[in-house]
């Protein structure tokens, strides 16, 4: 009897336990999904942090540049005052280096000693004499960079406690360097050369000036072309275009262009601008034109969104007081949409600034040691300069590359901040 009454109860309890267990499982699955989500976000943000962190850490040594100061005697007669650029400045510099290290005399030791110094010193000496020929016959004080290995020795990138075979400087070079430190000839000012110098084969002399000027010209061209053309195209499509096959085709085209890989635009630039129209290779104008073709869809899409946001009542009021369609758009709709358009334009230009692949194909990765005078001269751009430096084997370029990336990211952050500010400040809701 008791069995028959207890059986269903136990069954019930079992069922209840099972349901309970199932519920626990289901809740566990819920927690798991939540945990996966958190893990995914932590992974993504962790990668972002690692990326920014490693670049900041590698860039840190490039913030300063180790310089050495020498008093160089420029004897009367060693430089022809009529032709001061013909003097043998390296010899004078070597003489003043030899005065500090009189016991270095074998050719090999002399070579090793000179390896500590950048060869930019002679040019600095020359420029000083060129600027002020009355210095001939006196003593000139010049401050110029140590070489790559000297710089890294000073910053501790090269560990001096390693056995000599495992580091790139030998014991003698360390000893000479210590003498210079003791004599107070070594200093580490901020590395303005990184911004002010043009490119160079030697990391300690290489700077971003050419790349910055080149990027500026390219972005200028990009802006001058894509801003008016983009607005015009968007205004036509949004305000004037009849709904027909041509406008459909244009819209499909714009959407597709926005997703075409950037390197294909590079191929277009190479085949059309360089090969067909015979434009100069490596010139910022070509880069700017290619970038403007890429930026155009972004600007068109942003402008159309901004135009859409202007309420029809504005247009109706303008038409009502006798404005033509063109006047309505030009006097009322466009000015009201302008903040949105500018925001989109800045974002488009920021993308263009970071674009590398198409610029590589039109030759903006050339090695050019002077900033371009105009947008028709060969030049590099900021991202292609980063590419060149990242490819260079010298150790000193690693930190310079990271520093250049920080400069690039700095520009991008500023541009995006301006865009966000403009959106917040001028956005109007109707």
């Amino acid at each position: 009897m008791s069995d028959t009454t207890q059986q269903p109860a136990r069954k019930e309890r079992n069922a209840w336990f099972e349901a309970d267990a199932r519920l626990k499982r289901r809740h566990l699955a819920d927690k798991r999904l939540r945990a996966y989500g958190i893990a995914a976000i932590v992974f993504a943000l962790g990668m972002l942090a690692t990326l920014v962190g490693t670049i900041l850490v590698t860039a840190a040594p490039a913030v300063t540049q180790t310089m050495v100061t020498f008093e160089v005697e420029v004897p009367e007669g060693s430089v022809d005052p009529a032709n001061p650029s013909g003097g043998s400045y390296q010899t004078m510099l070597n003489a003043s280096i030899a005065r500090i290290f009189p016991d270095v005399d074998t050719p090999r030791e002399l070579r090793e000693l000179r390896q500590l110094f950048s060869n930019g010193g002679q040019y600095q000496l020359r420029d000083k004499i060129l600027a002020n020929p009355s210095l001939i016959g006196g003593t000139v004080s010049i401050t110029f960079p140590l070489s790559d290995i000297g710089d890294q020795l000073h910053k501790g990138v090269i560990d001096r406690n390693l056995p000599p075979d495992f580091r790139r400087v030998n014991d003698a070079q360390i000893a000479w360097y210590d003498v210079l430190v003791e004599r107070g000839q070594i200093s580490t000012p901020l590395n303005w050369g990184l911004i002010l110098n043009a490119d160079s084969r030697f990391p300690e002399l290489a700077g971003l000036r050419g790349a910055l000027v080149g990027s500026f010209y390219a972005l200028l061209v990009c802006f001058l072309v894509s801003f008016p053309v983009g607005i015009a195209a968007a205004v036509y499509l949004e305000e004037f275009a009849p709904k027909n096959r041509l406008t459909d085709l244009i819209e499909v085209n714009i959407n597709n262009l926005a997703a075409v890989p950037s390197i294909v635009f590079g191929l277009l630039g190479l085949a059309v601008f360089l090969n067909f129209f015979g434009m100069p290779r490596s010139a910022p104008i070509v880069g700017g034109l290619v970038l403007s073709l890429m930026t155009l869809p972004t600007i068109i899409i942003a402008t159309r969104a901004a135009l859409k946001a202007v309420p029809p009542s504005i247009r109706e009021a303008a038409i009502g007081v006798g404005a033509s369609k063109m006047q309505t758009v030009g006097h009322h709709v466009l000015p009201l949409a302008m903040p949105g358009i500018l925001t989109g334009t800045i974002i488009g230009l920021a993308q263009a600034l970071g674009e590398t692949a198409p610029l590589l194909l039109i030759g903006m990765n050339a090695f050019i040691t002077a900033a371009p005078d105009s947008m028709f001269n060969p030049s590099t751009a900021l991202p292609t300069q980063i590419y060149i430096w990242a490819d260079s084997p010298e150790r000193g370029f690693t930190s310079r590359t990271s520093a250049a990336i920080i400069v690039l990211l700095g520009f991008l952050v500023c541009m995006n901040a301006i865009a966000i500010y403009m959106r917040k400040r001028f956005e109007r809701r109707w």
Partner: protein
Amino acid sequence: MSATSLLAIVLILSLIGYLWGRASAASLKSTGQGMHSIPAYHGYFIALSCGIPAFLLVLVWLAAQSTVIDTLLIAGLPAHITDGVETSRMSLILSEIKSIAGGRIFGTPDPALIAAAERYNALRGTASLAMVVAALAVAIAAMSFARSRVSPEFRARNRVDGILRWILIVCSILAILTTLGIILSLVIESMAFFSRVSVFDFLFGMEWSPQIAMRADQVGSSGAFGAVPVFWGTIFISAIAMFVALPVGLFSAIYLVEYADKRVRSFVKPLLEILAGIPTIVYGFFAILTVAPFIRDLGTSMGLSVASNSALAAGGVMGIMLIPFISSFADDAISAVPQSMRDGAYALGATKAETVRQVLLPAALPGIVGGVLLAVSRAIGETMIVVMAAGLMAKLTANPLEGVTTVTVQIVTLLIGDTEFDSPKTLAAFGLGLVLFITTLALNIVALQVVKRYRERYE
């Protein structure tokens, strides 16, 4: 006079035309006649009719000038230089003439070349002078013609609106022209390539080594332009990238939409989007600076041999780049599922996870798939990460620790520093570019279709 200053002069002429037209219309108006358009529109009309033809003339002239001069120059060369010379040699001769003309003389050139250089300089001088004269003549003629139209009945506003409308149309057609330019340049150069290497060999050949085929006796017959290993490398690296990006992007989107509270979401979402704003060159440097050495050390410590440019490093970093793509598309798609569907699932006793898996994901699937397809197209076309972090050797391997090469890497390496346009090596880049363009275009079209269809479901 340079083209820039000429354009500036044309601009100034237009300004003068504007002032002139406005002034003359204003003087007409002051006589008390009823004008159809306000004076400013008469001014605009003259400015546009003067500026646009001259501007177009200068553009066309600049575009045609170098080709015309080159043709004239070649036609004028004596027979002993031009006889039996191929086009590639001809372009070398032309550039030699131009460098002599620019004053950079190496060795003792043929006197005929020096004469040609002098003629080149003379032609260029004549051409630029003719351009200035022609442009100014057109501008002034158009200006005086437009001025003669100023009258009370003249519908200047309608005319100006019409002209502006045409300008707008031309600008929007530029998008079509760009696409057309891409297709034409890719197809024409690829045709030149496929006339030397058969399409079949290119698409299905198993060996890729364009450098070997540089030797003159091997052109086109070496069979070294088989692109299958290159295509495989692209697919392989993209697959690795999606393997990273898809789960991370999807799970973070699910978390942000369904679990996270508003504060976390408004903080994390922009941070994730930063990943999409970082230039790809930075990712490439990150890959060679941090990720590749890390993977190599990890592999070596486990006793595996890892190439320094392993597919894993390039694909993994590319996956990080694609996370925000997937997550923002999935985010939009999941957010767009109506609240009523969630409520229905909760009312039946479903947990959040069950709602997500059985209700939201199926409903949002088209949007997510569209996003994934766009991300794949991004991955295939991505250049800088793979140029820096992936290999150059085309290898058919499924081992992610080995280096593979991709279509974009090959395009860049084939074209960097090379200006000749008739070696199969440079032309091969355009063949690869054509394949890349068609593939990404197809993916984009399919993706947009999928997304579009999905949108129609809830609106």
